[in-house]
């Protein structure tokens, strides 16, 4: 049986009919139509589906959408600034060459966003430790780590 829930995604409120078994990743992609969020393993291991719920990084493929009723969600589409300018984290990923095939990128960006919001100046260890739930099969992680370091510097300079 479908129930109507309210999801505030990237600042816009969506009323979506969901079945209790619908996972958040499917609802965001198929019902809301924001396909930036990716589904990788579907079992909570790869991190491609990472979105922020109330600012915290979670795995949308193993989160029941109905548990997010009334909550604020940020997906990769919500990262760019209102004028279309890229977020410093996105800019750093592009400039550092931290993207190859791009499939893990939305999840990486959201995890990085969650990390930098809590810890604006993470150490190399912090970055590796907190990003360990996002798997990339192309880049070897080095440039991703560098991009987050650059983003951390840019953001702490107050340049947004």
């Amino acid at each position: 049986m479908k129930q109507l829930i309210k999801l505030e995604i990237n600042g816009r409120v969506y009323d979506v009919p969901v079945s209790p078994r619908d996972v958040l990743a499917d609802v965001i992609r198929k019902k809301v139509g924001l396909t930036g969020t990716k589904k990788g393993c579907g079992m909570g291991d790869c991190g491609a589906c990472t979105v922020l719920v109330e600012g915290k990084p979670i795995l949308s493929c193993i989160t029941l959408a109905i548990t997010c009723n009334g909550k604020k969600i940020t997906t990769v589409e919500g990262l760019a600034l209102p004028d279309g300018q890229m977020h410093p984290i996105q800019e750093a990923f592009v400039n550092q060459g931290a993207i190859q095939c791009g499939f893990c990128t939305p999840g990486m960006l959201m995890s990085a966003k969650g990390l930098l919001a809590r810890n604006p100046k993470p150490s190399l260890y912090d970055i590796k430790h907190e990003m360990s739930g996002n798997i990339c099969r192309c880049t070897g992680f080095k440039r991703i780590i560098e991009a987050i370091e650059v983003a951390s510097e840019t953001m702490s300079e107050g340049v947004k």
Partner: protein
Amino acid sequence: MFMNQFEYFAPKTPGEAFELMGRLGSKARILAGGTELVILMKDRIIRPECLIDINNIEEFKGIKYEPGKGMVIGATTKIADIQYSEIVKRKYYALADAAGEIGSSQVRHMGTIGGNSCNASPSAETPTPLVAYGATVVVSSATGEREMPLEEFIQGVRMIDLKEGELLTKFKLPEPSPKLVGRYAYMGARDANEIDFVNMAVTLELEDDKQTVKSVKLVMGSVFIKPLISTAVTALLTGQKFSDELAAKAAEATQGEAKPITDVRASAEYRHEIVGVLARRLLKEAFGAAQEV
């Protein structure tokens, strides 16, 4: 991979939760963090008819510390909140450390401390330090509460002392002595986002001479059906002047106590070896830290 259809309930008060549990009985499963439950449902290993989501019940979450009395941690407190909590780091360092080693950052923001114990996996991270700090759990139902040591609540692999209609609602940690130090260590296939082969926690306190062990407790995880408290370490070290030789002897004794099995992650033989290594390292580390207090 689709889950079965089920009915979803999100009570806002303990009373509502107990009423639902009484009415739905064994048809319902409790949803806390979902990092284990939802995966089991997706794999169709379990197909509950109803889920009772207890995350909206304020009474069941949060970290409260009262000087001299200790800490109370609500069962649905997120693992990440424990990992980052300054007061947990200060008073129960090994617990914060173990919390930070669970899964990934995302899993820690979803998973709960209650779930980590109720799941009753021998390789769980937080029960080991919780037992080392002498934590008790409070199990609540419509008719009242029961309190018991965590090592009694966890009875074996996926087995806990929870009767129908009961919920694990909080953990109580006694106030640690000001000179008590706690340390945690683990061995796994890689440094993060893995399941431990062996994990271990030690709490240790020295006499004023900074050499003699006043009290020590070593708890092992993933080498028995539930957290295993070493009686040998306590017996060998209490009242003795700490030395590397004594630590080595105590570590050897833990190898006699551990009852590891061979599984997909590691062999019993390897685990047996690692128990000794971790015990020696941890005892020395805890001793060093206790000298600095």
